């Protein structure tokens, strides 16, 4: 068993441990964790059975198996980034709506307070 073999497996296990621990602590929601979990599992499978990588590479016609790893890694990172940008946009639009509601309610409260104060005032000094 070579050092690099062990290294691959340990790295994959660390990724999985971090993701699962984050999930357990409510630090990560399932829909965000799913990509990282999938990547960690694939890394673990390839770490344990390196031949799978060579087989997959020849299947899709990639000459150097490592290039398949790079390609898949970049693809996953790209998709995750798109997902994050989308969620950021959604959050911004939700923040905007909330800010509007807060401002509108603030104004209503001020108007109600003023109307109430006026009503009490006129009752005291009829």
């Amino acid at each position: 068993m070579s050092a690099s073999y062990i290294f691959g497996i340990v790295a994959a296990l660390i990724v999985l441990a971090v993701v699962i621990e984050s999930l357990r602590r409510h630090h990560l929601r399932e829909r965000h964790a799913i990509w990282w979990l999938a990547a960690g599992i694939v890394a673990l499978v390839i770490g344990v059975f390196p031949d799978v990588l060579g087989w997959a590479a020849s299947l899709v016609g990639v000459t150097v198996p490592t290039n398949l790893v790079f390609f898949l890694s970049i693809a996953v990172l790209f998709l995750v980034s798109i997902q994050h940008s989308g969620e950021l946009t959604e959050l911004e639009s939700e923040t905007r709506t909330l800010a509007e509601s807060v401002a509108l309610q603030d104004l209503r409260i001020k108007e109600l307070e003023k109307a109430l104060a006026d009503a009490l005032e006129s009752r005291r000094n009829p």
Partner: protein
Amino acid sequence: MPTALERTLIVMPAFNEEEAVGAVVREVLRVAPGVSCLVVDDGSLDSTAREAAAAGATVLQLPINLGVGGAMRAGFKYALSKGFANVVQVDSDGQHDPAGIAELVAQLDHYDLVLGARFAGVGDYAVRGPRRWAMQVLSGILSRLTKTKLTDTTSGFRASGPRAVALFAQHYPSEYLGDTVESLVIASRSKLRVTQVPVAMRPRAGGVPSHNPYKAAVYLGRAGMALFVALIRPPVVVAFTEPVSPA
């Protein structure tokens, strides 16, 4: 039956405008009798809200800065909840001459969205060089889209009728330039009738419009982007009900 001006809400987005906003509010209330004035304080750090309230405006204070488009949508929502029929957007820096308000509102009898155009012959406001070309390209495309001759599509001086208010309370872009450009696309897609009225424009209280070609290119790029995005988005449909008279 209240007059058209009495059913109109002036919405002024204001961000750190404590020096100008008070005078603008007073002038608006003087030259357009009967209107209500809402200053949307867009997360200002100075005393904009206090100055505006002292001048006689209702003040809607946003807790964070949302930009002109964000402030305007909040204003449209307020108008809708209070039963105002029309909304007129006026800049809080005094660039728009409030004398034009009555003219814009008068056109709302026949149109849903009336733009106050700066280059249509009245006043001496002028923009030169690349920025002018950028604005012309934009106007050409939007004129074709709205099927009316528009010469100043980035004007912030505009009046919205009941249909436009209902639409914009739901959909008003907050992106830079999106508020002026994309809102026109949204309006034309929702079959609103758009027109323009020439208005005089005053020089800006502070600063001058830039004639830097680099900035003009960036401006055209962002405007083009806003236009492109607006065109590829699916049209929005908003159920419209006749508004009640203001409380």
